[in-house]
């Protein structure tokens, strides 16, 4: 018999060592499970925190009594009545300014109602509470409000509303919305993708299909991988130096006859974001191209295709879904970036919608950042609401990426 046979445990001692092995395994399993639990708790805490801020009781007073303007309850007024009230009570300068932005007669009832509240009655928010507090201490809050602010109304409010999505920035939290920020963000990622997708895909094709495996190309490849990890503020500095300053004639639009802006435009921000996501897009596109099997390339070469025909007719069509998926994920990073925008010069208060690449702009993360730095707690509530908007946008993008991947997933 093989002499090594005696060195293996048998019978009881084998079973003992086996139970030892299972013990070790179960310890590791528990560790992995707790890692997962910690991750889930962190995510849940994040979501809780955001949702907690976006809903809850708010106590507010009317600075001016509605009875001063109309004998009817405010909610029962119709559009012409609201229009008449505004016309009668606003200064003619303010009225004309509003009328210039959008003719008053054509505004909706909801719009006029908001204007009446904002300009005439003027809401004064006294205090607001988080969702948890509102749910757990409802009676206490009501008692507290009755005592401290006898004139105040208390209402349970969702700070995120359709109106919140469609109104521009305002200096009053009650009337502020994220339309300008959403449009700014969309313009920005649009420009970023127009810039980065063709360039990134082209670079990836070259690196993957044409470049020799020599020293220089390895250095380039390594640096692309490293660039994907460079802190975003560094890209902000780059954007400031190159796009905002050096290329100002281009990015301010003065080359195209736009006169009233400097280099701090959506165009600069979009290009900066484009440069920021470029390494990600290149790497993702390379992976997608790598996933196209060599047998397909050989099949094409085998029937007398040139390299270009092989790439154009077979490699790219089979890699395009992967390239787009990667680009969408890269875009969702651009959508959430804040630091480069601060450096490039996003406006923190702007109520005009961006109307082209050479507009001043703000973006969702900037808006959120700006609101969270305000002292009044009602701004924290609308910051939480804006975070929900941003998260929904990001999830939508990621869902689109997943759908695209599943739809075009190929089996070779």
């Amino acid at each position, binding site marked *: 018999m093989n002499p090594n046979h005696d060195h293996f445990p048998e019978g009881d001692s084998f079973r003992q060592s086996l139970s030892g092995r299972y013990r070790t395994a179960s310890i590791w399993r528990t560790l992995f499970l707790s890692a997962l639990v910690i991750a889930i708790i962190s995510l849940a805490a994040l979501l809780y925190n955001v949702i907690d801020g976006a809903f809850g009781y708010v106590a507010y007073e009317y600075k001016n009594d509605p009875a001063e303007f109309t004998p009817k309850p405010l909610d029962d007024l119709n559009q012409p009545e609201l229009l008449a009230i505004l016309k009668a009570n606003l200064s003619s300068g303010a009225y004309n300014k509003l009328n210039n932005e959008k003719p008053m007669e054509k505004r909706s009832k909801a719009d006029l109602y908001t204007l009446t509240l904002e300009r005439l009655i003027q809401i004064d928010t006294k205090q607001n509470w988080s969702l948890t507090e509102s749910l757990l201490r409802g009676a206490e809050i009501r008692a507290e409000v009755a005592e401290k602010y006898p004139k105040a109304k208390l209402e349970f409010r969702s700070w995120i509303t359709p109106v919140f999505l469609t109104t521009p920035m305002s200096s009053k939290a009650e009337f502020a919305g994220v339309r300008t920020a959403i449009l700014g963000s969309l313009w920005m990622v649009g420009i970023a993708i127009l810039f980065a997708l063709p360039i990134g895909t082209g670079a990836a094709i070259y690196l993957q299909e044409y470049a020799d495996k020599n020293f220089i190309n390895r250095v380039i490849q390594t640096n692309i991988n490293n660039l994907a990890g460079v802190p975003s503020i560094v890209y902000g500095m780059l954007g400031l130096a190159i796009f905002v300053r050096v290329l100002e004639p281009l990015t301010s639009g003065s080359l195209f006859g736009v006169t009233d802006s400097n280099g701090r435009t959506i165009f600069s921000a979009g290009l900066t974001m484009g440069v920021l996501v470029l390494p990600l897009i290149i790497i993702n596109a390379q992976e997608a191209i790598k996933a196209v099997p060599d047998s397909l390339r*050989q*099949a094409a070469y085998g*029937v*007398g295709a040139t390299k270009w025909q092989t790439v154009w*007719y077979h490699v790219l069509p089979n890699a395009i879904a992967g390239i787009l998926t990667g680009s969408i994920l890269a875009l969702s990073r651009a959508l959430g970036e804040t630091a480069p925008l601060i450096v490039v010069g996003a406006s923190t208060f702007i109520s005009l919608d961006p109307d082209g690449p050479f507009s001043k702009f703000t973006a969702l993360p900037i808006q959120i950042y700006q609101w969270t730095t305000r002292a009044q707690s009602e701004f924290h509530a609308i910051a939480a609401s804006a975070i929900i908007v941003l998260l929904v946008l990001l999830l939508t993008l990621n869902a689109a990426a997943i759908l695209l991947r599943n739809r075009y997933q190929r089996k070779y």
Partner: protein
Amino acid sequence: MQNTHSKEYAIETKSLFIFYGSFAAVSEVNIKIEKRKITAIIGPSGCGKSTLLRSFNRMNDFVPSSYVTGEIRLHGQNLYSKDIDPVEVRRKIGMVFQKPNPFPKSIYENIAWGARINGFKGNMDELVEQSLRNAALWEEVRDKLKKSAYELSGGQQQRLCIARTIAIQPEIILMDEPASALDPIATLKIEELMQELKKNYTIIIVTHNMQQAARVSDYTAMMMLTEDRRSGTVIEYDDTKKIFTNPKDKRTEDYVTGRFG
């Protein structure tokens, strides 16, 4: 290694060496492949059969650092001379691969694409039908030409690959273990097809399956690693019958009788 039977040759190699970097994968190959016959290349794994086959239509060009010395002649023209474009070589010398690799497109498009990129001006429907008929696939797919090639079975896919290859009217068809991924029935169909095809084309086939080589081929080249075990070469090249019944080389005899390899 003399081939005394025929006059007309499709391909001739002259002291052919194939290198990967400084390593000679194949060395000193001198063979003449006869026109409109089936020539099998057999030998143990790693002896350079596929490398030799791929050198005939310059598919090895895609392996970085590979190069060739010596000559491979087609119509007296060296395929590796500077003024020869490898794309033109592959247009004349088609290839069928080990694993069926149809394009992820329709059956029709699989055939038509190669013809189209090579500037085919005739009637495409006719060409597709003719190629599929010649590959003994027409009856099975005539009603689903617009369907994806991936819906076909492995054996059908491989015949589609053969149809795709003959659609561009090559002179020579290289087959790199074309039946190794197929079941015996599909294999038989491919072998029958090869007998049909050799009426019009020269076929060179690499195979691991010695019965297959014995069944289908007219000539057989036996490859083996050289004594120092570094480089593959053709040790014997003759009529298939002779190789399998009365080989000159002891190593060939050991191999074909299953005593080695």
